[in-house]
């Protein structure tokens, strides 16, 4: 794992990727700090981080698109399979390298609230709490990005899908407000989601029977529940969207709440997507 980690770090830092990422990361925080703290005079550094989290929509796809898609394209994944390193070690090593790359610029950001405090009253624990939330948000999005990169051989494709996933995640809660809260609307939305899930299963396992079975059972099950318990579906879809949005959890940190359930949530998202990545890579050996 350390070999993969060090190799990945070397790849990131021998090119421009890590430096450009760091620059944009600092730039985003700086711009929003200028706006919220210096111009508007808010005494909350958390707002600057909330603003900067918008930049992750573009930065995460750029950082993660290469990570596995490139290995597949250059056939270096065969090398990784033949080395005495397990797939889990490969994925975790890569994830840690990307995480460290994105955390390094944030080390500077730790000092920002302290500097701001010299010129006004600022509550440091919530500022740093929000920074911790920001790092966990980044880590979760990285895990999602790595998974998407493992689905394709093409970097632009990985970046595109990842960007779409990030945007969806970011606007999920706003979308949820517009999303119909009627019971029937929730039913349709759920069935569409289940259909997409079935497509994903089909793509990942290459087993159309399994995909049809899970998709069919889920959709029929949902429809059956709808018929008997229509009231459960009132406002269900918006609620689901709010609960699965990674960004929504981060905003809780911005609001000054350091809730351990959110930490658990972030860790689960990371583990879940890294697990899927391992499965996606393992699947190539069992095609």
């Amino acid at each position, binding site marked *: 794992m350390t070999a993969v980690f*060090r190799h990945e770090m*070397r790849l990131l830092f*021998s*090119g421009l990727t890590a430096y450009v990422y760091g620059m944009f990361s600092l730039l985003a925080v700086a711009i929003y700090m200028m706006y919220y703290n210096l111009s508007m005079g808010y005494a909350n550094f958390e707002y600057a981080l909330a603003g900067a989290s918008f930049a992750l929509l573009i930065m995460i796809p750029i950082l993660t698109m290469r990570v596995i898609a490139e290995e597949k394209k250059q*056939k270096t994944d*065969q*090398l990784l399979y*033949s080395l*005495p390193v397990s797939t889990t070690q490969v994925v975790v090593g890569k994830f840690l390298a990307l995480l460290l790359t994105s955390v390094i610029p944030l080390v500077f950001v730790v000092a920002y609230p302290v500097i701001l405090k010299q010129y006004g009253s600022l509550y440091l624990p919530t500022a740093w709490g929000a920074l911790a939330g920001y790092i966990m948000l980044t880590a979760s999005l990285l895990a999602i990005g790595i998974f998407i990169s493992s689905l394709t051989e093409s970097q632009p494709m990985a970046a595109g899908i990842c960007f779409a996933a990030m945007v969806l995640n970011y606007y999920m809660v706003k979308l949820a407000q517009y999303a119909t809260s009627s019971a029937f609307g929730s039913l349709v939305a759920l069935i569409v989601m289940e259909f997409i899930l079935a497509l994903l299963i089909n793509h990942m396992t290459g087993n159309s029977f399994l995909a049809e079975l899970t998709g069919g059972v889920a959709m029929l099950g949902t429809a059956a529940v709808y018929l008997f318990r229509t009231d459960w579906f009132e406002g269900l879809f918006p609620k689901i969207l709010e609960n699965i949005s990674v960004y929504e959890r981060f905003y809780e940190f911005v609001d000054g709440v350091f809730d351990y359930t959110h930490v658990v949530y972030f860790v689960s998202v990371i583990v879940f997507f890294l697990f899927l990545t391992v499965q996606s890579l393992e699947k190539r050996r069992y095609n």
Partner: protein
Amino acid sequence: MIEVKNLTKFYGDHKAVDNISFSVKDGTVCGFCGPNGAGKSTTMNIMTGCLSATDGTVTIGGHDIFEEPMEAKKLIGYLPEQPPLYLEETPREYLRFIAEAKKVPREKVKGEIERVMEETQILDVADRLIKNLSKGYKQRVGIAQTLLGNPKVIILDEPTVGLDPIQVVEIRDLIKNLGKRHTVILSSHILSEVQQMCDEIIIIAKGKLIAYDTAENLEKLLQPKVTLEVLTDATREESGAVLGQIAGIESAQYAQEDGLLLIRLTTVPEKELEIRKLLSRKFAAIDRAVLRNDKLKANLEEIFIELTSPQPDGPEENREEEA
């Protein structure tokens, strides 16, 4: 060292490898030969743990590649068909990663890298980016990678494909040298190449093992008889009488060519020269001309094609296996 038992692999409905078994002893150079799409790469990918098998086992040095992948993989250096190189790195950086991943002790990493670079003669390009290297050098970097950690088994998938003739000779020499200290398995679709480099040859086609023997035995198996061709203006009866006086001719066939008689004889290799001498003398003795008296060169490639050609039961699927 390597034991492959009843190996079978399906890609969907396509049977890429069909119940292959063989074992390779320590210190041999073993050649894997077969036309494109025969299942060579698939078999090698399974042996190195890059691919799962539908059925069967592979044991490397006593370790099952599926049950104890870490132990088994430590004994293998593998060069896939397309050398797995990180183009943005230099050979030195690349080899460092592989050495670390193969868990070469930290203090030995540097020495190991120097050793394999010297062995594959890539020291002069050690600090150039791999993407700027020629195909031959890329192949050498790929081979260097397999040697790190001094694995007992080295598996090379079509190591000479796409190289120019000089590079081919260089790589062949390199592989011959490797055979002195490692068990080497290499694949090729050129039989003569395998014959030159290997002690043992495995021929597969359409996923099936067709022949597995030492190079010499296989040669005998492939060319048990010598065919001679004689063109003469003698009549068939005269020729029959001449042939009757010569011992060691196993069979004779007659045909017409440009109004002359063409005789095809078969015999064993040991008697070939003597029979040819006798033939010209005996025909001269009855005042007949011998216009041609040749040994037909048995074409190995032809025999190979014959051995590996598809059965008439269905169209040949020339599909390249994908890892």
